[in-house]
């Protein structure tokens, strides 16, 4: 691993107070989601007499249409939302890094075909196809992770490709090639470790997209299914009660906004620090 670049990421994180704030908040969310079982309420215990209560001292976020404690449910929803976002990002990063490095390293017709493929995927209305595929296959968390991952890797592939193009001309990569190391080893041992910060930044921004996608799909009823619930699927049932209990709509949506905002701020700050020229989208 390239120590110097890693330290750069760390330094940038602590220097910028917005990035640090976003980072700390995300850690807090993660811990709250992990320790959701500490809540005194059972997220699935119904109690009809307590239904649709507004936020109060006992139920911080009120109760839902079955009288379940909404704060606890939001915490458990965070687990699903964050897990789907994170796992989809992994899928997208794996595909994107593979395609990007292969495309950039080999060039020629391989590069041509792969980049054409990326172009096609970018010019189809992916949200509609995601909806469709979710309906075709059995909707659920695994399907959702694979589908979101498969439709969001293109941007990562492009960035990784352009980084690979510049790195493969460096001496150490030349030496590796000249000393007879296989292409696979050159890519995994010499190229990928050196573009790791770029991949991490792209991954951070990708989580933001993935969480938004998941919430939209689940909101339409084609994502996370019962008995699991994510923030998006909670909003799906909450919209029916928007008139009498609008807090049910307020909290999960606000948390989606906040989480995505944190990932976006974090990713952007790091990106600006590492690619000063490409930071505002003028670089293709």
């Amino acid at each position: 691993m390239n120590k110097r670049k890693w330290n750069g990421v760390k330094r940038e994180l602590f220097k910028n107070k917005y990035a640090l704030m976003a980072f700390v908040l995300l850690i807090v969310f993660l811990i709250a989601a992990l320790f959701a079982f500490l809540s005194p309420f059972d997220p699935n215990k119904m109690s009809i007499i307590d239904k649709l209560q507004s936020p109060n001292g006992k139920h911080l976020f009120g109760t839902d249409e079955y009288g379940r404690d909404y704060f606890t449910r939001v915490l458990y929803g965070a687990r699903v939302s964050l897990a789907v976002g994170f796992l989809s990002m992994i899928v997208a990063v794996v595909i994107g890094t593979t395609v990007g490095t292969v495309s950039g390293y080999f060039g020629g017709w391989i590069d041509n075909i792969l980049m054409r493929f990326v172009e096609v995927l970018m010019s189809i209305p992916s949200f509609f196809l995601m909806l469709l595929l979710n309906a075709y296959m059995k909707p659920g968390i695994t399907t959702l992770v694979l589908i979101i991952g498969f439709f969001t890797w293109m941007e990562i592939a492009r960035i990784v490709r352009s980084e690979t193009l510049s790195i493969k001309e460096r001496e150490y990569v030349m030496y590796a090639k000249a000393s007879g190391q296989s292409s696979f080893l050159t890519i995994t041992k010499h190229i990928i470790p050196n573009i790791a910060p770029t991949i991490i930044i792209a991954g951070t921004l990708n989580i933001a997209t993935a969480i938004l996608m998941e919430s939209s799909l689940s909101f339409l009823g084609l994502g996370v299914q019962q008995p699991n619930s994510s923030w998006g699927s909670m909003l799906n049932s909450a919209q029916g009660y928007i008139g009498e209990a609008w807090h049910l709509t307020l909290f999960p949506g606000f948390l989606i906004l906040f989480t995505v905002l944190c990932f976006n701020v974090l990713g952007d700050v790091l990106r600006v620090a590492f690619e000063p020229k490409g930071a505002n989208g003028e670089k293709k």
Partner: protein
Amino acid sequence: MKKVILKRFLNAIPLLFIISIIAFLLIKLAPGDPIQSFVTPDMNPDDVERMRKSLGLDQPIYMQYILWLQNILTGNFGYSIITKRPVLDMIIERIPATLGLMGASLLLSLIIAIPLGMITAVKKNTIFDRIANFFAYIGISIPGFWFGLMLIYVFSLQLGLLPSMGMRTVGTDSIWDVMKHGILPATVLAFQNISVYMRYIRSSTIRQLDEDYVQIQYAYGASKRHVLFNHVLRNVLLPVITIIGLSIPNLVGGAFITETVFSWPGLGLLGVTSIFSFDYPVIMAITLFSSVMLILGNLIADILYSVVDPRIRLRG
């Protein structure tokens, strides 16, 4: 000039071809035998076989694709399984609603984003700039459907100012009524684009202000306002055309969910309802139409850009 347009056009053709294959496969891979939707209980197996033949379903898959493509190119998109109406008619009657909504939101985004982007560039690093930047972050992070629900809660349920669903009030037929219905969905659709445009315009204005021609204008004693409106604005607006092209996927994707939240009777709502009822012919047509919209949008942006920027035109 003609050469540029022709070249871009030819580039779009293989893309459309691949998308048509994807759309075709979507129908082929769909669960269930398509013949089932035509079979009635009083048909015997021979009838079913004859029907299969007459629909071309006994042919190898590439022949089926060619037949299908022929039909599509002559405007025959088949019939909806649910409503039994020609799919093309259903699509055509929905297009104005979707294009209207997209156009309105695009206009709204530009009207807000251009001045905001330029002001924040001039007032770089002031409180105003920071606040605008914060809102831009919110714009790209907010789930559109939730923003829509919140707007419905505030403006329809609490204040009772604007209708929350549909495009027309039953019994009234006025433009004003349609506009009133469109305000909330157009706002939702515009919010994300405003953020993207604003940040883009801000950074390109900042770059322009550093250019020599601006310094020369100042040296000649031109006022800040004069430089900004007569010189910088023009150069800033050029790349905006490209960014509009790039944001078309956002608009098309956003239309699906925004139209669903507001029951806006456009292509997006039709697409989502057809998915829930597994109405394959409609699904396929929507896939094709939204892809074509996307590609055409990019094509127009490309062409417009080469029309307004002579440097690209000369390069060919």
